[in-house]
């Protein structure tokens, strides 16, 4: 498609830029005009991070052709107010009400709400929620966002601000200070990794396995190197140091050596002058596979004759807890309740996809990236490049959510390897699909529970079996499993506990850390059973919990005696006062 010049009116300034017919407005704004406040979260018009206003209406700029915007008025977050001292009421209220966390979705949220307030000066809560329902936010739960938009509407109508929070008389503890980073986030100035460029920067991409389990017979990269703009096509043999990583067990290769264990496993990495050439290089690599038997179900994988995902066997970790005597505890019970539960695989879905920009600076590897674990990245990348740890520098830029998913390495080692080999800065940004295919997940669990209790509702025994689908590599899996075991019966005291928890390798996407870390799977099990014990004993849900709850002096599942700081009962009483007594369920 031939390039053409268009005149784009952005934030009241007319710019002449040269684009092709398929250039997207988001790329025109970010790459041609340097307006990086609009973000790419999904590239499909589904998350709202790229929202801009066109003739006062919110539009997803990641699916909107730039040429269509010609002759219209485009407003980006930079046009709402890019001076931190002169903020739009929406920007100010987002900061003051704490409606900004990671900030990646914030510009889009502010623009959608501006479009609302421009046509409706007095929106109700449902109207506010509807207006922002195309903007996904993974951090805030929307509560403070809705509050901020309501407050901004009030401010625009000239009403006095509602009363401030009560703050302590002196000192800094207990103050609801606004986040220092939120000013940059409401103005679009905060620099996320994809907002950054370096001169003569290359782009990277990774060839990934389409097979869940296969032997790599051969990799032919000759054809991929035919174009001069394709600067490197690298496989495992190009890694100068260690080709193994993992935060607990180093069982995962950066680039597969002789076999692949899950769909999405990295095989080769291409660095090229443009994103199009990266794709061309990836398309020209020829990999020949020999499919191997795969196993996806952890119960199947535990059988002796199951295909082995790793040489050492498929049971990656078995965590036991044996407290008291489970048989005696069950024998002493008046009531025994047994139930089986299952949970699903969950994606973190941080709105900012994984991204890294690496370059060599006077013998030091510098990696700009989003991260929850920069020092862990530093150590792993040093081992990969055979560098001393002190010769790797990780600079965490604004990070658009993580929730556990930005602990394990993702784009960073590939950008670093390509930069080391080519001597050029290299940027690698995941697509949404690549992020979902390759990032670690909340583990899917199968759980079997058997609780015993006396007629007065007190626990005597808890027998729990957990089977976790760990996927192809360990990542944080063994630690997640251990936490599941320690949290398996909830905040209750029970003298006899028996837990068997198994983390099992399969050819499934990799399980890892996710907010809650193995505890969210447990609570529907122990809480449903506690409720049932209450019903059988004629106790209210509040009272049955009160009778079993941990308090100072209690012994936990692992027989740790709690000495102090045990506020379990207080949380129970405070919530039930607020939300139970008022409901007609007076008996608590």
């Amino acid at each position, binding site marked *: 498609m031939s390039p053409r010049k268009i005149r784009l009116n952005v934030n009241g300034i007319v710019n002449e830029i040269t684009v092709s017919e398929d250039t997207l407005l988001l790329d025109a704004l970010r790459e041609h005009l340097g307006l990086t406040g609009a973000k790419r979260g*999904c590239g*499909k018009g589904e998350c709202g991070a790229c929202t801009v206003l066109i003739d006062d209406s919110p539009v997803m700029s990641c699916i909107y052709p730039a040429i269509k915007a010609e002759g219209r008025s485009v407003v980006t977050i930079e046009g709402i107010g890019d001076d931190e001292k002169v903020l739009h009421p929406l920007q100010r209220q987002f900061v003051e009400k*704490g409606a900004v966390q990671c900030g990646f979705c914030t510009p889009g949220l502010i623009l959608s709400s501006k479009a609302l307030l421009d046509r409706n000066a007095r929106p109700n809560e449902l109207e*506010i929620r*509807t207006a922002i*329902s195309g903007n996904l*936010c*993974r951090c805030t*739960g929307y*509560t*403070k966002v809705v509050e901020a938009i309501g407050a901004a509407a009030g401010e625009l109508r000239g009403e006095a601000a509602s009363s401030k929070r009560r703050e302590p008389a002196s000192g*800094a503890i207990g*103050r*609801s200070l*606004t*986040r*220092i980073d939120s000013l940059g986030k409401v103005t679009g100035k905060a620099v996320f990794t994809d907002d950054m460029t370096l001169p003569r920067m290359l782009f990277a991409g990774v060839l990934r396995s389409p097979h869940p389990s296969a032997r790599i017979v051969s990799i032919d990269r000759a054809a991929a190197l035919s174009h001069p703009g394709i600067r490197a096509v690298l496989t495992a043999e190009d890694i100068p140091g260690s080709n193994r990583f993992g935060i607990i067990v180093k069982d995962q290769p950066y680039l597969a050596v002789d076999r692949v264990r899950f769909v999405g496993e990295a095989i080769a990495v291409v660095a090229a002058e443009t994103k199009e050439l990266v794709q061309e290089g990836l398309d020209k690599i020829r990999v020949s596979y020999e499919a191997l038997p*795969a196993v*996806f179900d952890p119960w199947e994988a535990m059988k002796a004759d199951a295909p082995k995902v790793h040489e050492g066997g498929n049971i990656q970790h078995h965590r*036991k807890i044996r407290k008291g005597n489970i048989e005696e505890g069950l024998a002493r019970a008046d009531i025994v309740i047994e139930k089986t539960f299952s949970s*699903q695989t*969950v994606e973190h*879905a941080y709105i900012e996809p994984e991204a890294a920009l690496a370059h060599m600076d006077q013998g030091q590897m510098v990696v700009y990236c*989003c991260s929850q674990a920069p020092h862990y990245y*530093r150590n792993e990348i040093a081992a990969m490049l055979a560098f001393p740890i002190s010769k*790797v*520098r990780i600079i*965490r830029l604004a*990070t658009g959510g*993580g929730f556990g998913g930005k*602990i394990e390495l993702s784009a960073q080692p590939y950008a670093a390897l390509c930069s080391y080999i080519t001597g050029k800065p290299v940027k690698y940004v995941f697509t*949404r*699909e690549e992020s*979902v295919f390759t990032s670690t997940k909340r583990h899917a669990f199968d759980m079997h529970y058997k609780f015993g209790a006396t007629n007065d509702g007190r626990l005597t025994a808890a027998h729990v079996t957990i089977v976790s689908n760990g996927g192809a590599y360990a990542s944080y899996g063994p*630690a997640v499993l*251990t936490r599941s*075991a320690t949290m398996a019966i*909830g905040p209750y005291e029970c003298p006899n506990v028996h*837990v068997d928890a198994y983390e099992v390798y399969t050819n499934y*996407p990799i399980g890892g850390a996710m*907010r*809650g870390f193995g505890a*969210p799977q447990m*609570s*529907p099990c122990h809480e*449903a059973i506690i*409720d049932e014990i209450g019903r059988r004993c004629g106790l209210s*849900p*509040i009272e049955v919990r009160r009778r079993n*709850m941990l308090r100072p002096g209690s012994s936990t599942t692992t027989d*740790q005696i709690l000495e102090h*700081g*045990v*506020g*379990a009962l*207080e*949380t*129970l009483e405070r919530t039930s006062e*607020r939300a139970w007594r008022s*409901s007609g369920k007076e008996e608590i």
Partner: protein
Amino acid sequence: MKKRGRGIACTYFGMGNTAKANPSSAFVEVCEDGTAIVRCGASDLGQGSDTALRQIAAHTLGIDAERVTMVSNDTMVAPEAGVTSASRQTYVSGNAVRIASEQAREFLLKEAAEGLGYDAVDLEARDGVIFLKERPDAKITIEEICGRLRAKGVLVAGAGTFTPPTPEALDPETGLGIPYGAYSYATQIAEVEVDTETGEVTVLSLTAAQDVGRAINPMAIEGQIEGGVAQGVGYALMEEVVVEDGVIVNPSFSNLLLPTALDVPPIQSIIVEVPEPTGPFGAKGTGEPPTCPTAAAIINAIYDAVGVLITSTPVTAEKIYMALKKKQGKEE
């Protein structure tokens, strides 16, 4: 017919990595104008650790939080603070920052004691001044103290490290031991409405209380509770990565459903403060506990509304509908 129900669920959550050293470190430097720089490599992804750590340093040094600058994002500048995980940064890095700040404060108190002619232990630093506890009008500004120290050739700095008191690994055979130095506790109550014709669930309200030890920044804690609950609602009712023969079949947001502003109910957060002596100023971590009990509260509320217990998440309308059919069949 639409039926309403309420459900309650409780959780507890250990702070920091399980039965394993997970140290954090921090450097604190007080400049000659009385402002301070805190270096601690705790990653802030928007949850607010930079702000909480600033507050801890400011409170310890006795200066306004606005006078503290935080550097956390560069491994060449900020020392290792471990991973932002396990709800550990306020608890673990908060302690490292507190210890580093206390070390720096020693210089200030000693110098002030000399200037005022009292013993350092009788002095306190608060709101920019160092004063005699018993007679607050006997005071000197921290800015002045810093200037005096600089002139004497003394630079005010401190270094702190902390790892939770979990001395050894859990016993491999019994699993017994001390997995965590401190725990956070939470209770949530969900109110739902279930459409018995379709199985569809609407979460009407969510009340969430959490014992945070001591609230360093109440607004930020509310943000953590609200965001955590929203992820719990998604986990309970809609989120699922669907995998067929090892292939994720829903990798886009069009079919990988996440809660929008219309799916998340109003959330009432209740901050409970039972001080934890091993935490900085009694504080514990906040990030993860809110996600843990939400699904359980919703599942128990659905049972309360229509009398069926759904034992697999996500609790879709289809699962409820099928369970209601089965229950009806049994009753007839």
